């Protein structure tokens, strides 16, 4: 099956996403962490647990770990998230989550800012597939819940 640029399926399954779905960053269970949140998508049964470790002063995300089961979109999204937030100030991570949510709700109309979202811009195509937006958001919602616990 070839994937042309005009292929909507190719927009959804960007190579970055397929790669992250297979070689996952942060897919592990931590024994020590500052916050943990479990999130589930009841329509498809996808589930994820996100664990967050902050710096001693609480200002920086030292590590984001996650484990769960789900489709390639949800797994790749968690992997990209884990890569992106490591070493970032909490405030920046929060605004990153806001930007990602805005992108996911845009139904393909928003041009994402790669400076803010890094590899997560690959999920722009997902926003055109309304039924898959929740898959992409799953780990980000869980991370947001972790930050809320710590606020």
């Amino acid at each position, binding site marked *: *099956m070839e994937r042309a640029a005009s*292929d*909507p*399926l190719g927009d*959804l*399954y960007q190579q970055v996403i*397929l790669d992250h*779905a*297979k070689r996952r960053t942060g897919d592990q269970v931590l024994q020590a962490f500052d916050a943990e949140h479990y999130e589930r998508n009841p*329509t*498809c*049964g*996808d589930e994820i647990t996100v664990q967050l470790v902050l710096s001693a002063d609480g200002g920086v995300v030292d590590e984001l770990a996650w484990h769960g*089961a*789900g*489709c*390639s*979109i949800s797994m790749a999204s968690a992997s990209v998230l884990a890569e992106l937030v490591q070493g970032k100030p909490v405030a920046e991570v929060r605004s990153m989550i806001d930007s990602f949510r805005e992108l996911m709700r845009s139904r393909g109309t928003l041009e994402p800012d790669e400076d803010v979202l890094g590899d997560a811009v690959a999920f722009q195509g997902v926003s055109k*597939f309304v039924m*898959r937006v929740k*898959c992409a958001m799953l780990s980000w919602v869980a991370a947001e819940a972790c930050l809320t616990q710590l606020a």
Partner: protein
Amino acid sequence: MTPTEALTTEPDLRVSGGALSSAEVARIRADFPALDQAVNGHPLAYLDSGATAQRPWAVLDAERRFLETVNAAVHRGAHTLAALSTEEFEAARETVARFVGAGPEEIVWTANATDALNLVASGIANASRGRGAPASERLALQPGDEILITEAEHHANLIPWQELAAATGATLRWIPVRDDGTYTAQDAAAAMSDKVRILAFAHISNVTGFVAPVAELVELAHAAGAITVLDACQSAPHRHLNLAELGVDFAAFSGHKMLGPTGIGVLYGRSELLQALPPVRTGGSMITTVTMEKTEFLAPPQRFEAGTQPVSQAVALAEAIRYLDAVGPERIEAHERRLARTLVDGLSSIPGIRVVGPAAGEPRAGLVSFDVDGVHAHDVGQLLDAQGIAVRVGHHCAQPLHRRLGLTATTRASTYLYTTDADVDRLLDSVAGVRSYFGAAS
């Protein structure tokens, strides 16, 4: 071409028996406007009839004709349209009743099959609180009583029984399924006890296509003095069904899975049991005498039909049933059995595909669920959709069964009378490419 023109011009069609020919399927397909479209640039291969079936012109036209010419409130009003409306509404009930071997007084309109199963469970909960006594006492549950279901049930035939158990102190138990998601009459006998008051099970599993040993289960239940509740959602649309012959006490099915509209379902109850069942929803249209203190209720089925009913939907469902009858439920079953065999054989021969449910060669209905090693069902469904192939993905409202199978989600292809060999072949071709697309085949 209407189905009556198409199908009654050949009076031998039903007697001819056997699976539908490809010419017959082509003629049937011409009656279904929704099948004649392109999806994502490909002709639609609709393999999700187990979730909801497409509707023929005859059904769409029947509902529209009713709304354009007759539409009025039923069982009230003195005007001509009200009388015509009531006649059609009750004639529809008779059509449904005949189709499943029941009397019209044994057919209750509900919103859908889930609603019908909830009606039975909630009615029994009410009986257990003493409502409807003394007639309802035979249905009342108390602590120590058992409700027996199977591990393979759709959530709609599980959760209402969990709620009933919680409401009455009865215990919910289940017949465990084997590694392939099926069970035998012996498994059921082993799970049976003389404390069981209700045995509820799916005629055909919406996940595995497994056909329950209904006769044996009914015999077991009745020997223990238990009533039986049949989830007939996947059987009523797809095969000859005679509920009186099967001997079940209650049964539920949905209009939209059998070429009819959404918003209408059917509860069948054996006359004497429906008469014993107290009402669940109360209000207008289900009463004889109302005072400020108390109310006397109508006999079934009206006792269970409070408020405005899905009238145009009932009329359209009757038309759907006439359509199915004209084709012949036995022939539809044979057609789907043949397609299911092709699906099972084809899928089983693709590396990395695990078909759940009865093994190849074992009886199964016309639906097949499968797991693709290394690829989530949602990704499978997405790739198929991009090629115009519509399937269901997920847990199909049967989480405990999936857990038992060691899976969180499967992909399901389900067939109907309009499904072609080409639909099935396209699915098999596409599934063969799934693992390499997602890099799972290496």
